[in-house]
């Protein structure tokens, strides 16, 4: 290397770095009058409407301060997070709480508030409320809110969040479809179904199917009439396909929760100590749902039909593909934007006749967000000031006005969000909807239906295992509807797991609570010293190596043949050179990597929810893992994905071989094949939805249709549990270009003389490939195998970004399950135990590969 050039280059780089280093325009404020409030909300930094409101809050505090210098000036710091939301990805929130840098005010998904409040993550707000009430300050008090919205954020009798938004669900129906099917009253006005029994009848009249051979269309009712008597009422999906569907129970935003409640079921006992997912009422609701799906030809078929659905203007409800659905309030914006010409109506969701007879007239369910104060917040008083302001009518009015302007700047109708505060809800709709002559009557009617149902709404059970209950209730529903398990068995299975988790929460196993971590650093140092000396003796003492080899039954040769110079000790330059060169890595390991690894090992023997101190529980986590079916299922899924490693190697090698044929414009071709591995996932996820759409519009489905025999049906790709992983592998192969680079290099490195010699001996191209090319490439194949395996065992992104582990846990990968446990279920200890099991598996697989490599990897350098 030219040292002068290197020095100049170094100076230039340093200069560039110095120039580039981003300065902050605003310095940290050291004014004692200024109190900083850290705000964390979903969807990125503060902007638009909320930013205006916050600015107003700051200005007002300045004015107050001018009047009374004892009052502080508030500054709201935002931009804390840009994860999708705290429930889907609470990583950012939990890390900041654990790191004692938690926000002061957080916008949190309401149903998850109880889960983290139960673990001490949030500050109870009752004292603040009581104080404001006795002082006569206008504050967000419970009686101002719709009861379900407030109660959802309560745990153990205390309030942990002030509701800021709410959305309930109604039945939406397409009046055109109803007219077409003759579902009208005497005056020709379409009538929505009121009962489950009616719904089923409507479904048959509204569903239109098409004969695959003749192209004839008819209603499902007519098809059933044509069946021989006694035949099961189930659509034959081989001969017919769905064109329009009257009602898909789980499409829209209606989960088993709402159907269970409709049928009079409860998911938790009143005292919150018993999980009742297998309540007979819930099981019978599941049976009813399954019957509906079966009439339509089965759950997976309907799912595949749904996969063709798109959003916005192509929303299946807007295009008439789905005549009825139960969906949430936010749909009103889609309808406002794209359904101005669609005649639709809304009604309370239909109930079973028995429930109506028992006195329940209507029912819906809600979700929404709250403002909460994390227990570790630094400025709780200031945080409460901000919350009180943000939930005041002034602030909400301002926000609504700003949102309206923003919506209209984009040319959209503006419908305010439903407000959990009764008075504000009435006021805002009067002003912005009912009194606005430009808004069509059907929207006003729909908004009325939504608002009328608010007091009748249910919410997800308040329990420390809320997220698990949610996930398992989906699994149980999917298993039942798909016929994998009978509804009773599926709910029993899920119930058992959940009950164990709940019992563990309420009566945790005893153990030592870890409060101080001094011993950890001592232990870390001791372990480092012990490992270091062991390695030293192993490498410097031949007799010890022989003894160990004998002990382990290895051949004496293994003991001897480690490295040169071992027997006679090492030269000073070897000692010095070796340790100087690896020092950067060694320091990095000791300071930044080793500690966290050892920490996770220690934590794997503890129960730890991140928010409180860990409790030592010995091998409990490992024992629980043994019983956790999802661990083994996810491990199986992950091991299946290892298939992608050889496939990727073959494909990328094939590309490299193609490019190695003396191709012109090599740089261009290489770049082209490399492209897919650098396109960001945000951009490709939309594309893959289209590619894997199993309906006519889908790209792959279309290709298969064109090139194959008529009766060969396209698989349902990501919708089908047995194809989902394969689809992901196919997706991954797109990135094979990334691996191609290594092969090209390897191919370039094979001496041409070898081929020439082989040609002289009369070897064919194929013989040359297998006897020269492949053996010469083995070091690269080896590297790819090792890194591919390690990488695949940690596969996570696809499940996290695209499939969320579905369908039916088919893409529940090990690390995704681990992530769920760590950050969504509050079981970091368990997650760590899982990590170390994975570590052991990876280590074994790598060791086996290393051992086997001696037989087939060909190093030709001495």
């Amino acid at each position, binding site marked *: 290397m030219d040292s002068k050039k290197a020095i100049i280059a170094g100076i230039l780089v340093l200069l560039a770095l110095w120039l580039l280093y*981003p300065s*902050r*325009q605003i310095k940290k404020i050291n004014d004692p009058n200024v109190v900083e409030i850290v705000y964390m909300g*979903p*969807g*990125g*930094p503060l902007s638009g409407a909320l930013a205006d409101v916050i600015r107003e809050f700051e200005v007002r505090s300045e004015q107050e301060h001018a009047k009374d210098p004892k009052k502080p000036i508030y500054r709201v710091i*935002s931009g804390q997070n840009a*994860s*999708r939301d705290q429930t889907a990805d609470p*990583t950012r929130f939990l*890390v900041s709480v654990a790191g004692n*840098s938690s926000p002061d005010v957080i916008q949190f998904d309401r149903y998850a508030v109880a889960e983290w409040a139960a673990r001490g993550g949030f500050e109870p707000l009752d004292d603040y409320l009581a104080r404001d009430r006795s002082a006569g300050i206008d504050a967000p008090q419970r009686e101002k809110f719709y009861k379900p919205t407030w109660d959802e954020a309560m745990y153990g009798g205390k309030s942990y969040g002030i509701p800021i938004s709410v959305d309930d669900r109604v039945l939406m129906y397409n009046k055109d479809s109803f007219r*077409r099917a003759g579902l009208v009253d005497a005056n020709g006005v379409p009538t929505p179904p009121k009962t489950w029994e009616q719904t089923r009848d409507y479904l048959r009249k509204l569903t239109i199917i098409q004969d695959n051979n003749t*192209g004839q*269309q008819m209603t499902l009712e007519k098809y059933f009439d044509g069946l021989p008597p006694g035949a099961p009422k189930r659509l034959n999906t081989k001969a017919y396909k769905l064109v329009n569907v009257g009602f898909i129970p789980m499409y829209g935003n209606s989960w088993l929760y709402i159907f269970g409640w409709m049928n009079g079921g409860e998911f938790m006992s009143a005292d919150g100590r018993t999980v009742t997912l297998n309540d007979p009422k819930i099981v019978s609701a599941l049976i009813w749902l399954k019957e509906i799906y079966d009439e339509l030809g089965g759950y997976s078929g309907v799912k595949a039909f749904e996969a063709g659905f798109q959003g916005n*203007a192509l929303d299946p409800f807007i295009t008439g593909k789905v005549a009825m659905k139960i969906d949430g309030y936010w749909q009103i914006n889609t309808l406002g934007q794209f359904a101005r*010409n669609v005649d639709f109506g809304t009604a309370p969701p239909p109930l079973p006749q028995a429930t109506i007879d028992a006195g329940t007239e209507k029912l819906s369910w809600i979700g929404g967000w709250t403002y909460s104060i994390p227990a570790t917040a630094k400025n709780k008083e200031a945080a409460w000031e901000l919350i009180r302001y943000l939930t005041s009518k002034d602030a909400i009015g301002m926000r609504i006005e700003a949102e309206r*302007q923003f919506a209209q700047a984009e040319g959209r109708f503006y419908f305010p969000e439903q407000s959990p505060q009764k008075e504000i809800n009435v006021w805002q709709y009067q002003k912005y909807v009912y009194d606005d002559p*430009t808004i069509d009557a059907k929207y006003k009617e729909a908004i009325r239906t939504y608002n009328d149902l608010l007091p009748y709404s249910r919410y997800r059970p308040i329990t420390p295992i809320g997220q698990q209950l949610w996930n398992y209730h989906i699994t149980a529903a999917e298993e039942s509807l798909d016929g994998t398990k009978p509804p009773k068995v599926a709910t029993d299975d899920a119930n058992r797991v959940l009950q164990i988790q709940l019992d563990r929460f309420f009566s945790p196993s005893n153990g030592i609570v870890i409060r101080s971590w001094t011993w950890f650093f001592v232990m870390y140092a001791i372990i480092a010293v012990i490992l270091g000396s062991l*390695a030293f003796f*192993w*490498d410097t003492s031949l007799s010890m190596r022989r003894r160990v080899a004998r002990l382990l039954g290895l051949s004496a040769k293994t003991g001897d043949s480690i490295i*040169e110079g071992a027997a006679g000790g*090492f030269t000073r330059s*070897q*000692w010095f050179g070796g*340790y100087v*060169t690896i020092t*950067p*890595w060694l320091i*990095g390991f000791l300071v*930044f*990597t080793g500690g966290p690894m050892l920490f*996770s090992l220690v934590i794997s023997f503890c129960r730890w929810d*991140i928010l409180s101190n860990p409790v030592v529980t010995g091998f409990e986590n490992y024992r629980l893992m043994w019983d956790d079916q999802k661990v083994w299922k996810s491990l199986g899924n992950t091991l299946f994905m290892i298939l992608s490693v050889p496939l990727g190697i073959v494909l990328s090698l094939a590309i490299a071989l193609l490019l190695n*044929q003396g*191709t012109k414009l090599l740089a261009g071709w*290489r770049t*082209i094949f490399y*492209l*897919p591995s*650098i*396109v960001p996932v*945000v*951009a*490709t996820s939309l594309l893959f939805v*289209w590619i894997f759409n199993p309906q006519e*519009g889908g790209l792959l489905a279309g290709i298969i249709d064109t090139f194959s025999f008529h009766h060969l049906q396209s698989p349902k790709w990501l919708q089908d549990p047995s194809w989902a992983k394969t689809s992901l592998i196919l997706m991954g192969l*797109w990135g094979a270009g990334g691996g191609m680079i290594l092969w*090209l*290099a*390897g191919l*370039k490195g094979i001496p*041409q003389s070898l081929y020439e010699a082989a040609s002289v001996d009369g070897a064919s191209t194929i013989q040359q490939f297998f006897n020269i090319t492949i053996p*010469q490439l083995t070091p690269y194949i080896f590297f790819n195998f090792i890194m591919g395996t390690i990488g695949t065992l940690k596969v996570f992104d696809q499940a996290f970004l695209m499939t969320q582990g579905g369908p039916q846990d088919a893409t529940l990968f090990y690390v995704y399950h*681990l992530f769920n446990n760590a950050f969504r279920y509050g079981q970091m200890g368990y997650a760590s135990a899982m990590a170390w099991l*994975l570590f052991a598996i990876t280590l074994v697989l790598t060791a086996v590969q290393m051992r086997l490599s001696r037989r087939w990897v060909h190093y030709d*350098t*001495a």
Partner: protein
Amino acid sequence: MKRTPLHQLLVYFLLLLGAVVFTFPFIWMVSSSMKVDREMFTEDLKVLPNTPRPMARSPYVDDAYFSSLKPGAIGVDVLQPELEKLVEASGFPIPEDVDRAVARREIARGLYQRLGARISGEIWNGTSDKPASAAAIIEAARTVVDQELVRQTFVQIYRFAAVASVRIRDQGINLFDLAADETPANRWTLQGSARSTLTDFNDQGKPAAKLSYDFASGPDIRLVGDFQAPADVSQMKSVRIDIHPDDTWHNITLTLEHSGRKFVSERQNFLSNFDWATYTWQHASDDDKSTKLRQWIVLNDAGPSDVTDPKQIRMTLDIHRVNQAYAWANKVKNNYIRTAEQIPFWRYVRVSVFLVLANVVLTVISCSFVAYGFSRIVFPGRDLLFLVLLATMMIPSQVTMIPSFLIWKSLGAYDTLTPLWFGAAFGSAFFVFMLRQFMMGIPRDLEDAARIDGCGFLRIYWHVILPLIKPSLAAIAVMTFIGVWQDFMGPLIYIADQRLYSLSFGLYAFSVQVSNNPALTMAGSVLMTLPIIIIFFLAQRYFIQGITLTGMKG
């Protein structure tokens, strides 16, 4: 190996085939980035964006809107004449400012699409014993098609330009309607070379002034409005005008005059899309430098003006005709401008470039140094340490995230860029392993020769090893570049201050905020990908060469 023409043909065929498959995601991303939201959600998804149509006359009827109809049992051509008669019979008054024959034809096509959903399937598709017939369908259509349905269909294809309310905003959050007591058309006077008229009308309940124009007589339209504000306007912040664009992609700019100064818009806006929208122009202010989503166009001072009355405001809206090529250019750049403008794009780029440079330099130095030790020097504990190095790659980062965070925080590095680059000084296990494999292939003789000449290990590293692996370091540099450029988990965890966001993270945050507009996300993704492609294209020669040389074979 043999190189017959047939062989070559086959190679190029396969390469082309592969190229089609492999460039597809990229092409899709680029073309989507030029679409308007509407085109992202259509029944027949096309790869290329629709052609913009810079009409010379407006209002007009969009005859491309119903160009691809889903065919029923009886085709649209058969039914068209009868449907046109139904349109006529419905009594719906088609406005005089459009070509009525075209309007009738297009309404008929639109009706065809809607009838498929309105008429019962037995009639529309026919049954086995009674096949579909045009007569039966028209018979059924007669009961469905009324004036309201025709009106709804016409609204979908009627394109017009219009202006409605004009508002200004003060430094706070107060908005003032200007000339609220005037009708929308009376607020403006028309100038400019093109023939144009403003007429008051009511668009679905909204009072507005429709702008009819014909560019045959000239390329410019100018609307001048003189307004009296309720208060002193020297401190006003922004202007908001409700505009209904006519989807022609013509340019529109605002010139604002008040308090004796004249202000012109920093860039043009376009008459794109066909929904009411509020166009906002804002004086240069601190907002421009903030991290707010920027949904306004900046007004720059352009000298003195004769409007000096403290309450008087003059606005001049200039619409300038574009030709087909410019319309395309407008459409292509539209989403890019919006993306780069709405976020502090260059600030993010600067952070990203800093991180990339620091990471690349440190990674290359540290990894080559460490790999040298692991591959070329025999020292006690080497194999165990190497195993440890491999093992660090086997623990999922999810469980070490919190302790790592605690370490960085205790070092005072939370909410600084340090955790995102300083770690590179300690090498990365993956690259050390990779480089070690390459260095293992270098023949001993070279090193021995140097040693005989009296070189220590440092000089061997500098003078023998580095030159040999220099090109493969280029490979690592490129891979580090890509990794750091795209990383967003690091900033998510360690950065709280938006001013320190990197480009990937900033764009991610942006895409979450505009999730209803995927085209903007695509534009952002393209902006992020382009530098990588260029770097890869330029560096890949070294990249390949590098690994080859280290093999030292042949």
